[in-house]
């Protein structure tokens, strides 16, 4: 039967039990509190599991202290929850592993991410920590867009990529810092080599 031909049934809307929307309270590491709808929370796998495990009732939400998210600051968390509220009820995308990964940035997300790189960086960490797949996708897409039309030298500066030489120097420095004796041994070895000795030991 087609949709057009389906019989129309009058429904008394008042008779339908309306489930009361539940808003959870979260607190950032700088003690800023946010109220987020249950549906919006479903965008975050981490938070969704957390609230499910807590099993709060409406009264619990009001009476108990806000759920603390200790490694995200208020400014970032505000963006995260704004995004979740706007995209609540949307399906969570499944990664098919394709390369290049095609992601479009919707207008709302583009405006939301019109922020400085420091905050974008924190937003990506938050999206990763809270496991918000689509927010991670769009924020990563914004970072990927920074590479458009750049040369390796420009890309190294945009993405703050150290050169191979800098990498090696940092590695050496880290090794030396970890084991100060290593440098002495190396110098001794070099000295013996200069003196023509074949065996170090």
């Amino acid at each position: 039967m087609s949709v057009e031909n389906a019989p129309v049934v009058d429904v008394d809307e008042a008779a339908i039990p309306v489930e009361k929307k539940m808003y959870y309270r979260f607190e950032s590491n700088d003690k800023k509190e946010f109220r987020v709808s249950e549906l919006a929370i479903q965008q975050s796998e981490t938070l969704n599991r957390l609230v499910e495990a807590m099993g709060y009732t409406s009264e619990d939400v009001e009476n108990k202290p806000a759920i603390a998210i200790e490694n995200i600051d208020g400014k970032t968390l505000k963006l995260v929850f704004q995004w979740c509220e706007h995209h609540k009820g949307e399906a969570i995308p499944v990664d098919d592993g394709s390369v290049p990964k095609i992601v479009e940035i919707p207008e709302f997300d583009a405006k939301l991410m019109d922020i400085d790189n420091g905050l974008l960086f924190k937003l990506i960490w938050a999206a990763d920590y809270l496991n918000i797949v689509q927010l991670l996708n769009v924020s990563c897409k914004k970072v990927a867009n920074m590479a458009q039309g750049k040369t390796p030298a420009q890309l190294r500066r945009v993405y703050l990529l150290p050169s191979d030489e800098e990498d090696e120097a940092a590695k050496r420095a880290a090794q030396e810092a970890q084991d100060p004796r290593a440098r002495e041994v190396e110098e001794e070895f070099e000295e013996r080599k200069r003196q023509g000795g074949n065996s170090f030991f």
Partner: protein
Amino acid sequence: MRFRPYGSQVGEDVVFEFPFLNLPEKAAKNVTRMLDTENMFIFSLCSRVCRKHVTSVYRPALRFLSVAIERRGLNFKIALNNQDIFVYIGYNRMNPPAPPYWIQVKFPNGEKHLRNPNWSHRELIRHFMRVFNQELVGFVSRESIISGVNLNYLCHIFKGSKFKDFQWSYPELTSERCRLINSILPKKFNPRCGLSTEVKRNLLIQHYESLSLYTPTKLNLDDLLVTNATELNYNGFWTDKDWNRFLKLWIGMANIRVKTLKFFYGGNQIDDDVFRGIPHRIMGPEESKEIVLDGESITVRNVRFILRKDGVEAMVSVYSRWHQFIFVVCDDES
């Protein structure tokens, strides 16, 4: 100090520094996966760490990755399914040779001169192989190519690089130039030029998966008996008597290394003289056999089977479409 990226306008919402390497692993992978081929290629040239990021996610659909060895440099063609990228890396004649300063890359939408991250030719060659996850196809095809090039240097930069195919068309392949081929040791080698007896013997004793020889190079029974290649192709003609002698020797366990022979043959089916004095089994007139040659499945008819002393069977037939005499040792895989 902050900088304005190249090409951006004053007042434009520009992108400044972003600490890519401090991103969580999943996000860094996501970003890398979102780069298109051109940007992925450029990103891979930033540093070895970036190359690792690219190779961990990038599985390109590639037709082939070829390199033409030329007098002034190496010409790479990266033939992807949807686009081709051309890379030119010059070499200098300094002694010792220094790494190239620039890498010239031609993408479908324009050419770019990219600064080499101070990698040697050797590392750049390996870089392309790693990023595009493909063995090389090599070409030497012009007179100007090899003359004047430091062969020792070429041997050094290509040594250990995996070549699945190498074609040498021109100039002459001398014993000296053979050193390059021997240091590369491609799986398949096609010297399309005439070869001296010395060079021919030199090539025949190498363990190629496939070796193709072309006239005017002469190939006789003695040559075939010393061949170490698994597959030997030859566009010259052998008489029925030559084949008869070879098959008899093969039955007696001579040159058991050769698994496939494809030689030019004039007729559409094998002459009985080829099997004179050789016990063999003939496939029925309605029967046919599917075999895979050069990656192509072909159907052969009138197949004859011979049995070696140790019980190994070989099939002999003519593939009329290519006018080829085909000898294939049957093992479990065939």
